[in-house]
């Protein structure tokens, strides 16, 4: 009976739950889904992380390669993110060149890296003007159930904390780079940007961490990326219903609590890695 109603009138079905201040999966309006993170599982990558936010699954792999630094900034390296949404994760994606959703997500991650200064590009320089590291961060979605921006940001952060770069010296006689694979050091990850996404319903109600169905029914979305000092790296609201300043304030406070939760989880994971 309920399944039939859900198919015919999905929005009405949803409103019945929202009236009781809860959602079909039993969560409160301000509750996140169970977050799990696993780092260092891909041995062929220099750093990797797998993040599950409920059903949404994102894998991030970081590979480091050599490149010549850009001409206008000879003391900097590169960080190149790429988000891939293959047909595997959801029936709405087709094979072929990246669709709009993937391009927007890639641009969002590139903006977060740029704005939060998570890695100082100067740290990636080996020899000014001649050699620098380029970090290719590939984020692949294995299961799309809404809220990929939060999961991608978390996966990127966890993977970058896991990256180990070998020591490189430039041999003066041959002018070639010598890589010492035995001596590896972790990257200096300076800040911890954490993303919190909200969906707007019927122009008034805000719910945290929308699932795929909720995103489809919502009239707007909002993503806030905050770092540990409470500074905002990104306020991404791509259109949708209008919000007042007061509602934004509520979202900010929720984002602050989410940052603490994520930070705690990440610290636990990294501690457990060190004990190995």
């Amino acid at each position, binding site marked *: 009976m309920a399944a039939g109603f859900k198919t015919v009138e999905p929005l009405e079905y949803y409103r019945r739950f929202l009236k009781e201040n809860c959602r079909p999966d039993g969560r409160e309006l301000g509750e996140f889904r169970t977050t799990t993170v696993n780092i260092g599982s891909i041995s062929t990558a220099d750093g990797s992380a797998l993040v599950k936010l409920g059903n949404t699954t994102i894998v991030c792999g970081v590979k480091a390669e050599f490149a010549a630094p850009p001409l206008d900034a000879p003391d900097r390296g590169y960080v190149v993110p790429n988000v891939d949404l293959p047909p595997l994760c959801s029936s709405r994606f087709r094979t072929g060149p990246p669709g*709009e959703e993937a391009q927007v997500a890639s641009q969002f991650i590139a903006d977060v890296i740029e704005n939060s200064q998570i890695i100082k590009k100067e740290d990636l320089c080996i020899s000014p003007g001649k050699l620098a590291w380029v970090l290719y961060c590939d984020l692949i979605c294995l299961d799309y159930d809404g809220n990929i921006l939060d999961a991608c940001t978390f996966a990127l952060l966890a993977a970058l904390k896991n990256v180990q770069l070998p020591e490189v010296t430039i041999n003066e006689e041959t002018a070639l780079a010598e890589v010492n694979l035995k001596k590896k050091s972790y990257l200096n990850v300076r800040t911890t940007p954490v993303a919190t996404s909200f969906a707007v319903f019927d122009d008034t109600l805000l719910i945290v961490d929308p699932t795929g169905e909720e995103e489809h029914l919502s009239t707007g979305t909002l993503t806030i990326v905050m770092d540990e000092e409470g500074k905002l*790296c990104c306020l*991404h609201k791509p259109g*949708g219903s209008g919000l*007042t*300043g007061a509602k934004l304030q509520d979202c900010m406070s929720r984002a602050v609590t989410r940052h603490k939760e994520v930070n705690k989880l990440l610290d636990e994971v990294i501690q457990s890695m060190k004990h190995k």
Partner: protein
Amino acid sequence: MEVAKRADARLSTDTRTESSPRSPVCSLRHFACEQNLLSRPDGSASFLQGDTSVLAGVYGPAEVKVSKEIFNKATLEVILRPKIGLPGVAEKSRERLIRNTCEAVVLGGLHPRTSITVVLQVVSDTGSLLACCLNAACMALVDAGVPMRALFCGVSCALDSDGNLVLDPTTKQEKEARAILTFALDSVEQKLLMSTTKGLYSDAELQQCLAAAQAASQHIFRFYRESLQRRYSKS
């Protein structure tokens, strides 16, 4: 063909009378708008903000491909062409922002199974490009007669390292700024429709920029109203 009407509007808003290090002297650059300048699209507009200029054309409601049609509302499409080079990922991201903003105001339910296409061409870029694109898109949608529940406008502000606020920044001000925030606000209650930001800033600074943007949007909406009144009073 409509006679081009330029509405001059140099506005300065002093939000505080006593000067203090944080009191912003907000002024928008001189802006002008021209409507119905292209013959092919159903609606067109050219919006100038200082030296930044964007040309917008709207086709719609028109035929839509079966794969893209939505059964109960119009399908909105936005195409943004940069001044030089091929459109890249950054353009796709901006198209998504503009499209979602338009979808929130356009009454798509009145034209189901149709498509409304907004084409934006960047003519010159000297700062605040996204805000100018939003304004041009709004004016073009009005010119095409697309039913909307509200008008919208784009406002850009830059925060420099001292915390001073500059509205409608030029390219030079954008480069030196610590953070650049672009908002789209609606005309009914000045609610925040769209926001995209670059750089680091605090929560208090966000509220300050939002308030300044809301004040500036009043001027832009007054300009829309005046230019439309002028246009329709002649004919």
